[in-house]
Every structure is written in structure tokens, then in C-alpha cells.
């Protein structure tokens, strides 16, 4: 048996293993992999995602078990420190020796730290490994305790530097980017596109400092600033150095392998070093006098090395290596392909720039204007895949090449169809998947949908940049086979939510089974379609959640919010946030009686936590006796209308925001929608009710209300957009009735108003035409439907506690009056909380 040792367990080292497992046909070889980091290979390209979720597992290329299952011996936390070519052995940092027949060097690169005075100070980091990130997170957290508005700089405005900039933003520090060159991303972008990128990044709050040579890092023990010139200092509390990479070629030097003048292990196009039994792949390999710092060429190198080791002497790297790339940097699309900077002697450049939208597109075409030579896209790279394919396959381009980048009035692409691509067009360059392979997987019946295509071809599993194109090809192929592709709600229905809305409304169905039996696919429903139908029944017939409780989502089923330990929280409605002292006392008395944890919610209501299922109806009987009703905090329905105190008390108030807020909350209470709805009413432009952060918001101005729609907080905060100005109360209600009803009719399941209106064709202008000008002639219908729901409102808790049959479902056991004995509370700040999860 022959022994292969892979030195380095990064993305390319892992890819060698993966390709090896796929291609090796027998057990001639035994593979051993050494990684110096504590964990198996992970996706460094998406490293900044770690700041969002801090889930190292999610970044793993494959779990440790994968190596075991495939007979690969993975050794982590152990660095190879020496190679002895004469005895064909290596020595590790733990002083162990191993022999090899073939050695694969995939040691990658390390961050280049320029020799700046003071660079060793505390608070200076590099950006490469998960451990680096953990160090930064801990340092930033400490920093913020004493200095909430701390600043952090990134040294380097290249591709990796901007990635690190995203990390600074995610750590909630004031971000600065310091670049030596006069522009950002000097290697990938021309001056104009670089400027557009800079403007865009500045607009989202990054401070960019160009043409800055850092003389020294200031501070005694920890960094406090960076000095560029004598009087040119930037105060920062943390620094991330991202000034380029250096190949990790130190092993080659220990055994006299040929290395380049500026580093990198010299390889031929078979990926062999100057020793034919030693290969180098990835960022450590110097091929054609170049270090290729991208994942796709690294993966190709891994593939060639595998083939060579397995005996395919003809496998070689192509002469021209594609360095095209598409990235999302701090949320901004940046892409370049082919020859981004082209000398005028070779062809013509066509440039489209719109600084108001932070857009820049450049394509370079041949002198005869027949082929595409390269280009740059900043701000919107949706067309990258298609342009890249046209370039790679030397496809014919339109007679007017400008059409490829000019915005079209009808939104149609000038490219024609993805199906026009040649069969051997490489769609996924990370995994080398061609269009033919994708179509083939579907035509053979192996893949039935996008998820199948991804799992059987691996397309889109690398950098993910080709996903939109993979999706388009999949859908087009399915369509060509006569298989319809729709955004159906789940496997049980071939309809989307809007279709089902119409079906239920027209046919007048009353139960889930009627809908499923008449329009389903023969299955029995699931956790996706049941709540959707339940919500539609409520939106159409004003059904409460009591009617068909087994199809309700968990919270609606018990009219309360399930919490961590299976107990519930209770939120009574307090319209507009106005509450009498007596009612406030009643809430306190009830909370005391049932020993509930009490907290004011984000929507300024009072939430009572820790109620067992059996207690819920008892608590509600008490609440109802004191004049409360359900607050629908558990439903995809109107939550609160938050108000400021307005002109009734406030010396600045322009109108009675509380009175109007109460009126609106009482009007829309209980209606079920695709997602929760929140409102806000402010008495003046100081906006104390934060109305623009709500699905609908009103701000009192001279002469009436300004109406805003489509805002929300949450994971993707949005300010609501101005919809109508200086309108009176009656008009507000008219527009809101129409707006909310249209949303309820047409949105996707669990889509907030912001996402819905953003994806509406024609956008806000179209919405105004439909709602204000009644372009579609449906305004009256919408108002009538809403009025029906308003008239039919009934408090579902009052309904439940007055019906012994409905009350039965609030027992933990069907055969005992006992409560769940698994619930454990522990004390916390004079109240209680559920025992922490293990």
C-alpha cells in the first residue's frame, strides 16, 4: 500500500481528500492529512459569517466523521515541521515521523503583517482563522464594556480587508478602512468602479482613508491609534491587519525545493514541485510565476494532483486560468471577469455608471465587437453569471453590446436564455459542473428539483455565486420536460398562498380537509400548509383560531406564546398603550396570584410568563373579568399600535396620536395576515412612537397625517416609506384598509409588509396607483372585505373560556388533572425563570 500525506487541512487540502475519495477505485493508497488548526477544514471564504452566528460547525467543509468514514486519517492540532526527501519522511511538531510515497503540500498562506513599529501591541489582529475571530470578538466585547463607541480599523482595502470590514461592522464597532493605494481593491477594480464602491461603502457608514502609509501604531500596551504622517493620526481601539497574503512555503525551504523569489513553491502544470513525488496546490503553489489566491483555481489544482497521483499522466492545469470572481463585500456586489483592465489596443470598453444608485458596469469587447473580453460590475452583479459564461464560451454578443449592461425598461435581459449556453459551459467553477451535467441529472430522473440537483452534482456548494444560474437552468430544464415549477407553499399543494386565497374565497371552503381533498396532491398536510390555510380561513371568513384548532400553528392552538420550557406567556391587549391604574393593578394582582414572571414587552404591553397550559384559561377568566381581551401576541396578526402621548398632553403635539392609535388598534385587532403587523402613531415629527419602524406608521404634520408603509425592526430593519401626505383620519383608514387587505391577499406565507412591497412589480409607485388611484378598480372590494372582518371581530379567549368543549384542550393530560411534572423554575432577580437548557 502506498502512502499519501497531505500537509494542510484548509479548503484546498480538504478538496484534495474529497476528489481523492471520488476518484480512487481501490485501496492502493492510504491517505493521512495534517492540519495545524484544532478543527477540520472550514470554509474560509465565508469566514465573516462567523460573526453573525458564531457557529463554527456551519462553516465546516465536512465533519470529522467524514474523514473516518472514508478511511482518511485526519490529524489536527499537529504541524508538519520538516521534510526529509532522501528518506521520504516528514516530522511533526509533536516530534513524530511518518513516511510517504507522495507528499501534497497544501499549506496555504498566512496574512502578511507589514513591519510597522508597534504592530505587536494588544488589540492588533490578523484575519485568517476562526481562532483569530474568537480573539477579536473577545477583545471587542471587553472594549465595549468601557467604551461603547469604540473604533476599529482595517489595514488594507483589498478584497480581504473589506471582508474584515464587514466583521468590524458586525462587531458593532465604528469601522475604518485604511489603504495604502489611492483606491479600494486596486488589483480588481479600475478607478471609476473603485470610486463607486467607495461611495457605497461610505453611505453605509464605513470611514475610508486612502493613500495612507502607516508609520507606527500608537499606544503604551494596547493600540490607541495609527500614525500616518506627523500630524495625521487616526484614533482607533483595535486594528485588523489585512494587507495581503504570503505563501506558507517554509517547509520547501527546509528540504531545498525550488521556491520563487517572492515566495511560493514552484510547480509545473502537473502541480509537481522540483521533486516529482512532492506536489504543491492552492495558495502555496507558484504556477506560471503566479500565486492564485482564489478558491476555484485551488480546487482545480487539487483535482489535477489527485489525477496525477492516481496515474493519469495527461492531467494538467489549463494554460489560461480563469480569475473571474463574484463577491458580496459588506453586502455590495463586486465582480470582475476575463480582462477587467484592457489596453485600448485590444478592444473597446463600454461603461455604464450611476452614482445615485452606486452602480458601475463595464464590459470590454473585441475590436470587431463580436466577443466579450472581460468586465467589472459593482453594485449589481446579477448579470455576472451570464456575462461570465458569454466570455468563457466566446459566445456571440448582441449587435449593440451596450444592451448587455444598460438597464432595460421592461426588465428583460438582453442575453437570451440560459438554455442557449453550450452543454459544456462550466456553470459552477468551484466544483467544475457543466450545464450539461445539470440538465443530465434532471433528464435522467436522478434530480427532481433544485435541492436534488445541488446534492447530486454539488453545483453551488462552493462559493455559491452560481446558485441563481443553477436555479434558472434547473427550472428551464424541468419546464422543457413539461414539469411545472411554482413557488408552491409545500409538497401538499401545487399552489402558492395567493392562489389558495382565491380558491378558498371563490369556493367558500370552511375546513382544511375540504381544501386539501379538492385541491391537494393526495397527502395529508404538514406544518407548512396547515397554518397557511388556517390564516387564510381567518383572513377570508374571520374565523378565530378556536374553530379548527388542530391546524393552527403551536401558539395559535393554545392562544398563547410557548416559551423555552413549554410554559406559555400571556399578553392582554392594551390599545395604544393607554391603561388605567385599576387595570394596571389588576394585571399585577393576577400575575401575583399565578406566580408569573412579568415584563414590559418591546411593543410596550405587559407580558406574563410562566403560565402552564392548565393555568391559561384560569388566568384569562380573571383577565376578562377585569375588562381585558386577547392581545393576539401569539398570532400572525395585528400586535400593537404604539403611540406617543400626542397633543392631549405633549406641548409639541400636532394631533391626538393616542386617540387615533387606539382607534386603529381596535379596528384591526384580531385580523390574521401572512405575518404579524405592527403600527405606530406619532403626534409630531419628533417621532417618539417610532412609527416608521412599523408596518404602518402615522406622523402628525400641519394639515393632517403623513402615512408610511412597509417598515419593520427585526433581522432586516426597514424604515417605512412615505405613502401619502397630509391626509385626514378617514382617508388614513381608507388607505390602510386597502393596503392591509391587498397585503393579506397577495403576500407569501410569513412575508412581512416590507418584503412584500419591495418585491411587488412596479414597487411603491404601483402600490400608490392601486391603493390611492384605484387603477385596478378593486379598492371598494378591499374596503368591504376589511369592513367585514372588522364587524365580525370576536375575542377568541372570551369565546374559549365560555365553551366547556373548547376548554378541554387546555389540559396537559387527557387522563389526569395534574400538571406537567417536567417543568422546573429557578429564581432570578426577585422573579423566576425556566431552568437553563443543558
Amino acid at each position, binding site marked *: 500500500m502506498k502512502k499519501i500525506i497531505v500537509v494542510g487541512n484548509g479548503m484546498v487540502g480538504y478538496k484534495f481528500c474529497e476528489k481523492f475519495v471520488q476518484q480512487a477505485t481501490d485501496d492502493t493508497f492510504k491517505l493521512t492529512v495534517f492540519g495545524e488548526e484544532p478543527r477540520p477544514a472550514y470554509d474560509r471564504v465565508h469566514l465573516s459569517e462567523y460573526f453573525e452566528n458564531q457557529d463554527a460547525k456551519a462553516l465546516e467543509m465536512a465533519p470529522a466523521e467524514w474523514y473516518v468514514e472514508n478511511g482518511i486519517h485526519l490529524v489536527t492540532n499537529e504541524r508538519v515541521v520538516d521534510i526529509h526527501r532522501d528518506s521520504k519522511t516528514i516530522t511533526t511538531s509533536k516530534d513524530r515521523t511518518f513516511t510517504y510515497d507522495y507528499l501534497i503540500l497544501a499549506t496555504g498562506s498566512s496574512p502578511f503583517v507589514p513591519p510597522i513599529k508597534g504592530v505587536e501591541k494588544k488589540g492588533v489582529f490578523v484575519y485568517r482563522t476562526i481562532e483569530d475571530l474568537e480573539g477579536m470578538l473577545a477583545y471587542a466585547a471587553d472594549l465595549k464594556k468601557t467604551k461603547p463607541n469604540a473604533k476599529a480599523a482595517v489595514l488594507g482595502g483589498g478584497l480581504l480587508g473589506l471582508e474584515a470590514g464587514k466583521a468590524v461592522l458586525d462587531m458593532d464597532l465604528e469601522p475604518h478602512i485604511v489603504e495604502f493605494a489611492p483606491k479600494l481593491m486596486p488589483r480588481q477594480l479600475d478607478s471609476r468602479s473603485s470610486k463607486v464602491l467607495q461611495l457605497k461603502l461610505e453611505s453605509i457608514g464605513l470611514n475610508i482613508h486612502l493613500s495612507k502609509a502607516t508609520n507606527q501604531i500608537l499606544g503604551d500596551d494596547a493600540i490607541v491609534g495609527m500614525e500616518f504622517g506627523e500630524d495625521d493620526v487616526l484614533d482607533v481601539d483595535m486594528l485588523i491587519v489585512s494587507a495581503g497574503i504570503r505563501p506558507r512555503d517554509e517547509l520547501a525551504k527546509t528540504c531545498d525545493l525550488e521556491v520563487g523569489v517572492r515566495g511560493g513553491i514552484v510547480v509545473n502544470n502537473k502541480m509537481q514541485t522540483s521533486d516529482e513525488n512532492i506536489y504543491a496546490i492552492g495558495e502555496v503553489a507558484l504556477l506560471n510565476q503566479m500565486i492564485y489566491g482564489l478558491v476555484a483555481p485551488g480546487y482545480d489544482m487539487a483535482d489535477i494532483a489527485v489525477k496525477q497521483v492516481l496515474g493519469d499522466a495527461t492531467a494538467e492545469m489549463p494554460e489560461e486560468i480563469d480569475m473571474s470572481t463574484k463577491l458580496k463585500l459588506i453586502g455590495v456586489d463586486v465582480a470582475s471577469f476575463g480582462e477587467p483592465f484592457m489596453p485600448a489596443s485590444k478592444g473597446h470598453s463600454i461603461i455604464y455608471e450611476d452614482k445615485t444608485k452606486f452602480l458601475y458596469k463595464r464590459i470590454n469587447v473585441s475590436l470587431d465587437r463580436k466577443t466579450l473580453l472581460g468586465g467589472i460590475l459593482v453594485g449589481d452583479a446579477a448579470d455576472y453569471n451570464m456575462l461570465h459564461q458569454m466570455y468563457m464560451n466566446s459566445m456571440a454578443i448582441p449587435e449593440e453590446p451596450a444592451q448587455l449592461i444598460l438597464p432595460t425598461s421592461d426588465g428583460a435581459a438582453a442575453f437570451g436564455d440560459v438554455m442557449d449556453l453550450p452543454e459544456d459551459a462550466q456553470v459552477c467553477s468551484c466544483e467544475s459542473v457543466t450545464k450539461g451535467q445539470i440538465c443530465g441529472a434532471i433528464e435522467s430522473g436522478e434530480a427532481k428539483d433544485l435541492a436534488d440537483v445541488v446534492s447530486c452534482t454539488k453545483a453551488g456548494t462552493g462559493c455559491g455565486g452560481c446558485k441563481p444560474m443553477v436555479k434558472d437552468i434547473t427550472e428551464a430544464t424541468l419546464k422543457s420536460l413539461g414539469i411545472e415549477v411554482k413557488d408552491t407553499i409545500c409538497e401538499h399543494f401545487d399552489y402558492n398562498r395567493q392562489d389558495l386565497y382565491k380558491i378558498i374565497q371563490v369556493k367558500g371552503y370552511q375546513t382544511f380537509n375540504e381544501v386539501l381533498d379538492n385541491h391537494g396532491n393526495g397527502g*395529508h398536510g404538514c406544518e407548512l*400548509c396547515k397554518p397557511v390555510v388556517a390564516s387564510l380561513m381567518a383572513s377570508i371568513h374571520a374565523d378565530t383560531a378556536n374553530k379548527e384548532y388542530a391546524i393552527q400553528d403551536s401558539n395559535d392552538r393554545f392562544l398563547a406564546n*410557548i416559551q423555552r420550557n*413549554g410554559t406559555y406567556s400571556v399578553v392582554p391587549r392594551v390599545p395604544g398603550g393607554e391603561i388605567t391604574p385599576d387595570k394596571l393593578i389588576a394585571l399585577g394582582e393576577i400575575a401575583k396570584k399565578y406566580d408569573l414572571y412579568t415584563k414590559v414587552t418591546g411593543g410596550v404591553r405587559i407580558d406574563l410568563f410562566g403560565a402552564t397550559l392548565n393555568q391559561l384559561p384560569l388566568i384569562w377568566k380573571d383577565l376578562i373579568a377585569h375588562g381585558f381581551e386577547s392581545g393576539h401576541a401569539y398570532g400572525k396578526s395585528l400586535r400593537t399600535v404604539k403611540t406617543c402621548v400626542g397633543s392631549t398632553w405633549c406641548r409639541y403635539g400636532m394631533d391626538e396620536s393616542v386617540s387615533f392609535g387606539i382607534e386603529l388598534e381596535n379596528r384591526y385587532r384580531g385580523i390574521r395576515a401572512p405575518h404579524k403587523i405592527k403600527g405606530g402613531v406619532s403626534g409630531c415629527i419628533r417621532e417618539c412612537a417610532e412609527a416608521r419602524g412599523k408596518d404602518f406608521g402615522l406622523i402628525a404634520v400641519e394639515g393632517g397625517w403623513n402615512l408610511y408603509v412597509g417598515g419593520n425592526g427585526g433581522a432586516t430593519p426597514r424604515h417605512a416609506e412615505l405613502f401619502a401626505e397630509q391626509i385626514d383620519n378617514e382617508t388614513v383608514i381608507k388607505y390602510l384598509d386597502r393596503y392591509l387587505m391587498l397585503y393579506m391577499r397577495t403576500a407569501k406565507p410569513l412575508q412581512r409588509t416590507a418584503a412584500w412591497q419591495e418585491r411587488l412589480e412596479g414597487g411603491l409607485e404601483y402600490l400608490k396607483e392601486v391603493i390611492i388611484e384605484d387603477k385596478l378598480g378593486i379598492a371598494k372590494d378591499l374596503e368591504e372585505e376589511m369592513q367585514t372582518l372588522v364587524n365580525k371581530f370576536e375575542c377568541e379567549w372570551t369565546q374559549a373560556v365560555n365553551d366547556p368543549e373548547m376548554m378541554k*384542550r387546555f389540559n*396537559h393530560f387527557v*387522563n389526569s388533572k395534574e400538571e406537567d*411534572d417536567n417543568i422546573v423554575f429557578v429564581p432570578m432577580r426577585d422573579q423566576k425563570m425556566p*431552568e437553563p437548557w443543558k
Partner: protein
Amino acid sequence: MITVAKKYKSVKPDEVKVWFKAASVNDFPKDGGACVKYKDLQIAVFNFARLNTWYATQNLSPEKEEMVLSRGMIGDHKGVPIVACPLHKKLFSLVDGTNLNGDLDPIATYPVKIEQEIVYIGFAD
């Protein structure tokens, strides 16, 4: 607490020694579930009316060890009858207890029989 999950072991039909009389069929919602107490066990019982079949599983969700499965929605995924845990929508096969969208431990399943409108659950002890 760590031992709670260990109390639940699947029972095959031929292993049943005790048929526990749980409650009347009318005590369970159609196409939904409710919880039955047996000794110190909590058993989730589901009336899958559309399939005309009854299922019983542990009430304990193995994800966070909370007694909630009987409150989950039921249905099918590619033909496999499932319950969705109300906490994070983890799906479990009602037939063999397998977690279909993750690698959680399977939940224990128990035989159910209906005689004269009464629901019985089968236990091995």
C-alpha cells in the same frame, strides 16, 4: 434530568404486556394530538384521522427535553406521517420516531389500539 429521555423506550406490538386504558377517542382532536399520563411517563397520542390510524410517542422532545410533542402539528412528509415539535419545528416520523430534519435521537414509539371507542396504549412493563 439527563435520565428523563432514558425512561422512554420504543415498544413493538409483540412486546406489549400491558394495554393501558388512556381515554375516550373523543378526548383527542382529529388530526392532532394530546398527552396521556402513564405511571411517571408522558405519552403523546395522535389521532391521524385522515389515515384512520392512531400513533403514540414519547411527549418529550429530544432536542431540549421539554414535554411538548403532543402539542405539535401532524401531517406527512413525502408520505411519512410526522409530528412537528412546537419549539423549533423538528420533525419526527410517527412510525419509527426518526428525526427527519436533523440528527436528533429518535423518539420512542408505542402501539395503540382502539376498542369500543376507548384508546389503549401498549407498554412492555
